[in-house]
């Protein structure tokens, strides 16, 4: 080990976004642990306040600051570190590191880059240099050439021949890449791409080739191993982040497996990577011909997956190698007896499936391809592909009970033509359509022809269809033991079987038990049982006859995780789960956690005493509960996924800890909750539950439009909408009732001129033990997950906060809350109304805990376990600093989506920053999510009359600050008539004059403010075109008037953005 390294700075990946998600919380946390073990002082820079890595118990110092060269230099000057880790914070950290090096900052401060060196990173990122370098050692890469402009692109494409693939240099998740079949498409794609990069790569397109990946580890002594290989179910043409992936590879022979392994090692040695890297291949399905597609010289989504799939702690090992250790000096931290220089043997298979949320966005193509659109992923472990596949499809939590027998005939197409289209031009639901193709009578060969999916995978799917047919024969009768067993072994769930047999889920469970059919617990030990190893990393399988471990031997507490990340439920709930587990351990219990998200810290081998990497579903949780016999289950940490199980678990006889499931139901059920509020005389927005269109129209008319329309049991605003007219209501209701046949629809008055206030608290036996009140910067109408949060509140009356506390206490008492809870309020003047109450941890728990410096989850877990609580409550008014949480939107990646805020949540991640005052905190947060400072050039298009008026003072202030302003016609005229002279630009559809589109293309604008006139994402309006143009051109965009005003005020105030660590803020 390099003993000169005493202090190291680690760069995080900032907000979660499409292509860069929770996996970097995992890798960064592991790196910090690895460094701390060596006595090295760790300095983390990451504004993502919801992560575990930014917790006080990990890094020695945490800077909640933007991961940009200017801020990092500030931290470097202050901390004077010896080394820096760039490869644990995704592309964000890597790009920042390369800039730091280019600007000479690292050299100036004598900082050593640990692990893979910058020239190597640059080589892997610069596509031409990469291709040339691999050519030197006779490794094949796709025929390609780099282009610097559109003209060059077309020339190269001509030379290679269509179809071609366009890739961007220095980008992640296939951003902006795509396949072009002709010159027209190439021109279009290239023009878009050059908005983000100065170089693109034009390469031969290997459609239908197998896509295979290897995760490679190399130390400074040239020891090199491949930890895991993975094969994509979807052949080349679909980004690996968008593909179903299986580990280990299934269709590769020994020769192919080791040919690619050898090339991987040769390549990694040649490049000189030290630490971890990922190599992606295309493999010809009818020969041994291969191409290296890319090498990522850093921890990646794939490495997180490989780490969880094998049990090999890649990030931890990579960090140690960065310090100069050799692989032979490191222990295998799973077995404790063998060394880290080995290649795990799996005796199971793993299936990863991406989770998309495309339905949340209007105008976004549901087709999947070479760019990433997915927002999360799940990983399932089984003994067979079929078992793992069906588990994984359920884990997606999109309403599927497995691959087949799904409600609404998921994946079924109206015609054979539509089915064929789905097969060869896939959407996110293709896998569900394959069984329908078999049912339609298509042969395996035919389906292969359309999908290019390897026949091996297709035959396994065909087998699932066969078993479905077999089971359905026993509908209404008695299913024989061997049939039921086979169905369970190929991954059928009890609900699926219940559907097929025409009985209740409980009946299937009883039948199973009578037959003695149950899943068994198996360990993941990296060595397939060759050496004795006691591990805590477990999964369930029906393809077994014995338990691998002793069950239920200690007093334990079972915590349910949060499952796949999706819009509305993300790393913040993992933070809650990890903290809950830590508290459970502290209180002397064995901690058991169930989770299936490979991008999380909670699924790390060293976080929990027993980790079940399995489904969070009634059937599975009960199976584990019955095996482990814990003191009880904590359901309130994993968001809505686990919370929804409270009542069913209780009904099936499991002990749910904390607030009673009956009370949870009283809060979740709109009727019960509303009548409780009425009886307590607590105000709420008027609402009505309606079952017919006529009633709905009448009620909406009486309320006056706009109205809010939503089904019950919602998280992240799925299927919520605002109707501004009767016509819109009718349209919306068709959609909502389609979505929820069992649930009637709820309509309420949509209030826009109110403030929205977030209340997060912990109670024990109905008494609030700690609470935090944050205000939304935006007025009501913006989903709370998208809103900018301010703590302590800056513009809320003391009287209002006092009332909120009182109301919350009353509700806590009435619902006998023990544990975490969250409420949302509307406030106008000093009047408050309760919008909703969730008897679980909320998205804002990490934010309030870290700003407030009181761990709400620890407290909540202690309450749940019946421990004495430390209830000393500091008033949040005493905080001498301000925290601001801002949202990150991934609209850049969602081609065509209308980037506007509404009642449906759209953000993929968040940051939280601290400042001595509100302006400082806001600016740090906005910088962290990609906004530019200083603001010198702005386009204003301020929408409705009222907003125009509201914005007038801001516009004047901007003028005084010397900001150059352009405005669209109406806004310009309005401002001119009030004495503010700005330059006019015409709307996109105008025939003459300089249009907004030209302006965005020509000027390097710092900000576009476009306030839409409607509350709904709209069709191809002028406003939409402006917003989309800004996003596609990489210009920061604000569509909310309050946020725009506050941001611009702060920018003009121009406070110093201080380099202060989290622990330097104290009250």
């Amino acid at each position, binding site marked *: 080990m390099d003993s000169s390294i005493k202090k190291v700075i680690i760069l995080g990946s900032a907000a979660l976004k499409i292509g860069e998600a929770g996996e970097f919380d995992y890798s960064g946390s592991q790196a910090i642990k690895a460094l701390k073990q060596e006595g090295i002082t760790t300095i983390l820079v990451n504004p993502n306040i919801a992560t575990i890595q930014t917790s006080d118990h990990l890094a020695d110092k945490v800077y909640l600051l933007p991961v940009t060269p200017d801020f990092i230099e500030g931290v470097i000057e202050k901390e004077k570190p010896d080394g820096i880790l760039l490869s644990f914070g995704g592309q964000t950290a890597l790009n920042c590191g390369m800039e730091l090096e280019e600007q000479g900052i690292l050299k100036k401060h004598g900082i050593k880059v640990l692990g893979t060196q910058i020239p190597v990173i640059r080589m892997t990122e610069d596509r031409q240099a990469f291709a040339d370098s691999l050519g030197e050692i006779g490794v094949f890469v796709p025929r390609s050439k780099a282009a610097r402009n559109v003209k060059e692109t077309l020339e190269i494409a001509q030379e290679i021949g269509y179809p071609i693939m366009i890739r961007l240099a220095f980008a992640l998740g296939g951003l902006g890449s795509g396949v072009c079949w002709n010159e027209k498409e190439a021109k279009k794609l290239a023009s878009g791409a050059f908005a983000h990069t100065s170089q693109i790569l034009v390469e031969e397109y290997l459609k239908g080739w197998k896509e295979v990946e290897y995760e490679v580890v190399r130390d400074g*002594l*040239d*020891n090199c*191993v491949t930890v895991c290989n993975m094969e994509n179910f979807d052949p080349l043409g679909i980004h690996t982040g968008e593909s179903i992936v299986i580990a*280990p*590879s*299934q*269709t*590769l*022979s*020994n*020769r192919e*497996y*080791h040919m690619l*392994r*050898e090339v991987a*090692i040769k390549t990694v040695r040649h490049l000189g990577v030290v630490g971890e890297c990922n190599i992606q291949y295309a493999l010809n*399905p*009818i*020969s041994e011909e291969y191409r290296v597609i890319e090498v990522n010289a850093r921890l990646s989504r794939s490495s997180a997956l490989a780490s969880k799939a094998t049990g090999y702690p890649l990030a931890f090992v990579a960090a140690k190698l960065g310090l100069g250790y*050799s*692989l*032979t*000096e490191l222990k295998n931290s799973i077995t404790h*007896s*063998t*060394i880290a*220089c*080995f*290649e*795990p*043997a*799996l*005796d*199971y*298979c793993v299936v990863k499936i991406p989770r998309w949320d495309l339905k949340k966005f209007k105008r976004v193509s549901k087709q999947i391809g070479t760019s990433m659109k997915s927002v999360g992923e799940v990983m399932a472990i089984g*003994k*067979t*592909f079929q078992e793992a596949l069906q588990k994984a499809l359920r884990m997606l939590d999109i309403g599927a009970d497995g691959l087949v027998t799904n409600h609404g005939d998921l994946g079924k197409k109206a015609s054979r033509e539509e089915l064929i289209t789905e097969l060869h031009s896939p959407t996110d639901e293709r896998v569900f359509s394959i069984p329908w193709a078999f049912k339609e009578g298509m042969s*395996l060969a035919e389906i292969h022809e359309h999908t290019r999916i*390897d*026949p*091996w995978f297709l*035959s396994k799917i*065909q087998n699932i269809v066969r078993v479905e047919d077999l089971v359905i024969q026993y509908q209404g009768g008695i299913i024989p033991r061997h049939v039921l067993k086979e169905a369970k072994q190929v991954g059928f769930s009890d609900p699926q079987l219940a559907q097929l047999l025409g009985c209740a889920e409980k009946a299937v469970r009883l039948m199973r038990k009578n037959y003695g059919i149950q899943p*068994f617990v*198996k360990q993941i030990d990296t*060595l*397939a*049982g*060759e*050496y*004795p190893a006691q591990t805590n990393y477990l999964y369930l399988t029906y*393809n*077994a*006859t*014995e338990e*691998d471990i002793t069950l239920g031997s200690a007093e334990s507490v079972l915590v349910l995780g949060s499952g796949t990340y999706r819009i509305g439920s993300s790393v913040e709930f993992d933070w809650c789960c990890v903290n809950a587990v830590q508290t459970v351990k502290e209180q002397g219990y064995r901690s058991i956690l169930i989770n299936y998200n490979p991008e999380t810290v909670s699924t790390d081998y060293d976080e929990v005493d027993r980790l079940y990497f399995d489904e969070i579903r009634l059937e599975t949780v009960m199976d584990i509960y019955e095996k482990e016999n814990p003191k009880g289950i904590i359901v309130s940490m994993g968001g809505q996924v686990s919370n929804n199980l409270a009542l069913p678990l209780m009904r099936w006889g499991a002990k749910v800890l904390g607030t009673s499931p009956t009370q949870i139901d009283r809060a979740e059920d709109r009727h019960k909750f509303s009548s409780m509020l009425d009886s307590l005389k607590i105000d709420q927005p008027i609402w009505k539950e309606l079952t017919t269109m006529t009633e709905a129209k009448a009620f909406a008319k009486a309320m006056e439009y706009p109205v809010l329309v939503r089904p019950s049991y919602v998280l992240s605003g799925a299927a919520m909408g605002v109707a501004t007219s009767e016509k819109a209501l009718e349209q919306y209701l068709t959609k909502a009732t389609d979505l929820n046949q069992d649930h009637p629809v709820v309509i309420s008055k949509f209030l826009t001129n109110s403030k929205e206030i977030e209340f997060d608290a912990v109670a024990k036996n109905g008494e609030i033990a700690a609470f935090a009140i944050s205000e939304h910067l935006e007025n009501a109408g913006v989903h709370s997950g998208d809103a900018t949060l301010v703590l302590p509140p800056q513009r809320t009356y003391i009287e209002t906060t006092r009332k909120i506390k009182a109301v919350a206490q009353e509700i806590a008492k009435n619902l006998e809350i023990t544990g975490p809870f969250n409420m949302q309020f509307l406030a106008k003047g000093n009047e408050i109304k309760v919008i909703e109450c969730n008897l679980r941890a909320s998205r804002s728990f990490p934010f309030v805990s870290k700003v407030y410096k009181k761990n709400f989850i620890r407290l909540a877990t202690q309450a749940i376990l019946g421990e004495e609580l430390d209830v000393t409550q500091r008033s949040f008014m005493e905080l001498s600093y301000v925290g601001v949480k801002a949202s990150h939107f991934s609209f850049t990646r969602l081609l065509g989506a209308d980037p506007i805020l509404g009642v449906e949540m759209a953000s993929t991640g968040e940051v939280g920053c601290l400042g001595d005052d509100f302006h400082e905190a806001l600016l740090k947060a906005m910088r962290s999510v990609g906004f530019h400072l200083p603001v010198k050039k702005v386009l204003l298009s301020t929408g409705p009359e009222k907003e125009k008026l509201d914005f007038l003072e801001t516009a004047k202030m901007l003028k005084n600050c010397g900001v150059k302003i352009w405005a669209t016609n109406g806004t310009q005229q309005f401002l001119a008539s009030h004495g503010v002279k700005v330059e006019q630009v015409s709307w996109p559809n105008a025939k003459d004059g300089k249009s907004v589109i030209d302006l965005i293309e020509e000027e390097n604008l710092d900000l576009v403010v476009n306030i839409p006139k409607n509350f709904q994402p709209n069709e191809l309006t002028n406003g939409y075109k402006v917003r989309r143009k800004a996003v596609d051109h990489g210009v920061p965009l604000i569509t909310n008037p309050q946020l725009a005003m506050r941001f611009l005020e702060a920018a003009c105030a121009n406070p110093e953005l201080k380099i202060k660590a989290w622990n330097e803020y104290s009250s």
Partner: protein
Amino acid sequence: MELILEDGTAIEGRHFGYPTSVAGEVIFNTGMVGYPETLTDPSYKGQILVFTYPLIGNYGIPDESRLNNLKQHFESDHIHLKGIVITSLTREYSHWNAIKSLEDWMIENQIPGMEGVDTRALTQKLRNKGTQLGKMIYEGHDLPFYDPSKENLVAQVSTPEPIAYGSGSKRVLLIDLGCKNNIIRSFLSRGVSLLRVPWNYDFSQEKFDGIMLSNGPGDPTQVMETVRRLQPWLKKDKPIFGICMGHQLLALASGAQTYKLKFGHHSQNQPCIQVGTKRCYITSQNHNYAIDDQTLAPDWTPWFFNANDGSNEGIRHKTKPIRSVQFHPEAWPGPVDTAFLFDEFVKSL
């Protein structure tokens, strides 16, 4: 079908392959690829193999075409295993160079298989209690246990007649103890010709530049005849290289002793460190016996050791070009990290 172990354990499974009962020694391997190579590896003579990887047969069985008189896709001409035990068999295989399914191939070769078995539980039993005798019983047709280690298995798998390969000017005498084809290929691809001779062949009259001792099945002490033929050559200066069984015989010839390992090594992911360096190689292994380092004669020194359990993985003569390794540098199946050992040996010829 039923698998019965000598300790009385009985395990139920579904039969596939050839309908027959067999008896042998039950062992396991944790490799994830390479079942065609494994099944034809002569080192498995007389054994019943448990695959810990649950999905077997995925890519079918390739054709039996020959190159240099060796089956291109296999490690010998026959399946040497008595039977295999797995979790799940793939019948609908998929691979561009496959011509039949694993099951059809096993039927042709009269090898039974058993699927639907909790191979992890079985592996743990074998690991904890050590290798056991066992029998796979087809439809109640019982048969006695059979202990292959009591026999000279090498004699059963070695070539009956000398065979010459290649036309390279350098010539290696290959003592066939149950040689895998890829050892031969490894020489041919380096331009070296070979004379492959039976395990007990008197090669004193042959002309060659070096001796290669192949891998092979069973207990090395059953093959003392080869050891005796070898001994005089240790005093000469001809290069000698041994692999696996060849390694153990070389050690015995030099006066060292072998012992039976508690767990054995049965995988494709064994880390081996070269003595005196920090270089570690991932190797393919399949053996129950090892050399006792402590018994090495003064002229000999350890060359590699196993990074997991410290057991010996290679020895070399201090002054002469005589060396051997316990692992399989020829790979197939498994990683090819140590193929450079062939380069070194060929260079020494």
